[in-house]
């Protein structure tokens, strides 16, 4: 009776423009680049995939169900650069077969540095999803599926979430399988869903790989793999970047046609069904507790933080930006706050990753900079300017106060 659970991550950062130490204008983001990338990906992926999935949901009259996690800043970019994507998400939300997950609005690493900021960003995201789609997220996913026991505890404490998602990493599972619902250690109510990385990556990474022994992957074959879990699992959690469709796996790999036919083959077996993360949590009781004392994530083979926090530059940049929190919040200036928060997006730190840099792989493909060093220099120049603006804002306030007194 495995329930197939699809969740798609939809995210694009606000990329920075080239910013030298000689720049002093308070405009940090590359409007042109962000707009053109957003439109490009919308045409190749978001619009096509949304229409395809909408069609599937309608065809199967509610038996095909999916979930999305949309970051706040991708929604801002859709509104600004390609509103037509917004209307397709509206249509998806209206079917009642789509669940939206909760996360930090800015796709940030704030959990690691500032509990207060972390909660504020989750609340901002929850409000946005409720306003746009009329549903309150019940399941939380942290940026890049970064997770440990402390995270689960603090999410349970918030009270607004029933479930949490992370990577089904081998070393936290041991002999156990990711195809069950679990409970995080130290939690009494919250349920834990784990990504089945083998089957997820078959679609997300290996699908178009001609040297893969299972190539070509057909919907029929994939459904047969799911059927094998029957009797030995509650769920199959297929979590992946939405850009898998059309961007990471190009259209000519047949990824769209695979997705079009998949529901049909999965539903052929009478024991199979589709459920969203929230529905999994309602349907199944946890079979065991999972203990994750050390931080994990869904990145690379290491499944750790090294892609964002692996060298001195990344650590320095992160410390510097969270050091500014107090100052920024004291200014009570919304513009400064928004700029500061957009700089927290994890992608900025990912670009500074020197791991594998010489080999040139995925890290390079998604990197708008020529080298991690360039990205660090750019980021630090922007941050320096932001700091100056904070100080200037205080200076102005002081002058105003002084003039009032006199």
């Amino acid at each position, binding site marked *: 009776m495995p329930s197939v659970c699809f969740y798609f991550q939809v995210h694009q950062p606000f990329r920075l423009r080239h910013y*030298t*130490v*000689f720049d002093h204008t308070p405009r940090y983001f590359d409007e042109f680049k962000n707009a053109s990338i957003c439109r490009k990906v919308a045409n190749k992926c978001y619009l096509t995939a949304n229409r395809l999935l909408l069609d599937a949901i309608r065809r199967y009259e509610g038996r095909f169900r999916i979930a999305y996690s949309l970051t706040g800043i991708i929604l801002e970019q859709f509104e600004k650069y390609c509103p037509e994507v917004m209307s397709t998400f509206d249509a998806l939300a209206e079917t009642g077969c789509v669940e939206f997950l909760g996360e930090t609005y800015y796709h940030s690493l704030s959990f690691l540095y500032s509990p207060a900021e972390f909660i504020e960003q989750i609340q901002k995201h929850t409000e946005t999803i409720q306003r746009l789609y009329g549903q309150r997220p019940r399941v939380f996913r942290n940026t890049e599926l970064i997770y440990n026991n402390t995270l689960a505890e603090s999410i349970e404490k918030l009270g607004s979430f029933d479930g949490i998602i992370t990577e089904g990493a081998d070393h936290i599972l041991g002999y156990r399988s990711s195809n069950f619902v679990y409970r995080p250690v130290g939690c009494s109510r919250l349920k834990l869903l784990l990504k089945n990385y083998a089957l997820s990556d078959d679609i997300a990474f290996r699908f178009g790989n001609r040297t893969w022994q299972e190539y070509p992957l057909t919907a029929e074959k994939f459904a047969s793999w799911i059927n094998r879990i029957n009797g030995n699992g509650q769920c199959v959690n297929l979590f992946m970047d939405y850009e898998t469709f059309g961007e990471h796996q190009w259209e000519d790999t047949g990824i769209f046609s695979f997705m079009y036919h998949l529901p049909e083959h999965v539903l052929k077996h009478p024991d199979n069904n589709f459920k969203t993360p929230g529905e999994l949590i309602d349907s199944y009781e946890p079979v065991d507790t999972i203990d994750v004392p050390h931080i994990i994530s869904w990145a690379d083979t290491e499944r750790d933080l090294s892609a964002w926090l692996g*060298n*001195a*530059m990344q*650590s*320095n*940049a992160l410390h510097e930006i969270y050091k500014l929190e107090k100052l920024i919040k004291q200014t009570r200036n919304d513009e400064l706050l928004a700029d500061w928060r957009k700089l927290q997006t994890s992608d900025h730190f990912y670009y500074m990753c*020197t791991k594998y*840099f*010489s080999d040139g792989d995925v890290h390079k493909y998604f990197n708008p900079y*020529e*080298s991690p*060093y*360039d990205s*660090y*220099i750019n980021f*630090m*120049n922007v941050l320096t300017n932001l700091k100056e603006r904070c100080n200037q804002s205080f200076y102005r306030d002081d002058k105003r106060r002084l003039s009032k007194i006199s």
Partner: protein
Amino acid sequence: MLGWEFPPYISGGLGTACHGLTKAMSEMGVEIIFVLPKPVDSNMSTHVKMLSPQQCRPRNRESSGKAFSLTDVEKEFANVSFRTIATPLTPYGTPEFYQKKIDEIRRQKAGQVQQTLDETLGAALSGKEASAQAWIRASETVAYESDSSGQYGGDMYAEVHRYAAHAVRLGMQEDFDVIHAHDWMTYPAGIAVASVTGKPLVVHVHSTEFDRSGEHVNRMIYDIERRGMHAADRIIAVSYLTRNIIISRYGIFGDKVEVVYNGVEQNGESRVAFNKVGIRNDEKIVLFLGRITMQKGPEYFLMAARKVLEEIDNVKFVMAGTGDMMHRIIEMAAQMGIGHKVLFTGFLHSKDVEKVYQMADLYVMPSVSEPFGIAPLEALNHDVPVLISKQSGVSEVLTHVLKVDFWDINEMANKIIAVLKYPPLQLTLREHGNFEVRRLRWSGAAEKCLKIYEGMLQHV
């Protein structure tokens, strides 16, 4: 192997490259006869001492061949023997500079130019395709010269050909399989030896006239280079950048040209803190190390320095090296009003180079056109982060360095400031860069050269 400079007294990267390559090849058991023009410049006289009989023992060749093996480095260079030819050739001289040298030497020696030599050489050269017979005749003539009162050709070009004639004489006496000529001054010698002995010729292009002179190429040198490349059986380029120039500017078929990247010798010593002489300890040091000449972009370094000084003050710019633009650059620094921030050291010998690396916070190579650029590798070896121009061959092999277009002063200054201002950047560059540079060994280059030799010898 036909070369023209060898450490410890060198004026550029070529000597370092010949040193590294021959050492690695020798360790692989390849026997090398290295032919050098014997420098007569008084500045270089120490080099002669290095080869003097007290330190070196002559081999079983006849004395005119001047065979030496260096005792202090005997193990490393077990398979390398040196032959020197009296000539004032220096690798980076211009014809005018050379003329001055010749005049000086003539005045000192008050010797007469040997008429017969000029005539024979003239004969050898007049039949443009220097025929074997003519070369042999020329070599017989030069054999009469005595080294102590060496006679010199009238100009640099004649000198290049006189070197060639000597090389032919050596070539007829020695036993070898392949001729390997380093850069244009040895190409005529390479062609001559090849035509006399029929042995295959490799020319190793460390730089081209377009790198040294931009678009104002010296026609004579270009012709020598072109003839050498066309006559060669194989060409070794130090980077793809150079390979492209060879193909597009010299009309050579691509399948004849192979790329062999230079390496760097491992530096096992740990970084020792030196007293920064004349420079306060809280001051940062940005280093330019190389010949001060058009090719190396010294003026871009200065212009970037001025921009840096607009933002931060506690920094000094050290320009180590000499060159034909030295005076102009000193004046330029003064005119910009940054004279007190720019220090000129003149030419540095290897010990001082070590010292200056240990003081530096950043090494900048703003070369306009750099076929390879060994210096950045040495800087990385000394734990100094580097900023190099994208117009350099070495940028093809290095990833953990900062790169910039040589003309982009703003970006250059931006990156210099970033290195000085953000210590984690310096730290990361240093760690990763030092790790990366360990993969670039001379043994790799030597292996590739051997493969090329083997490929040629199979065809013969």
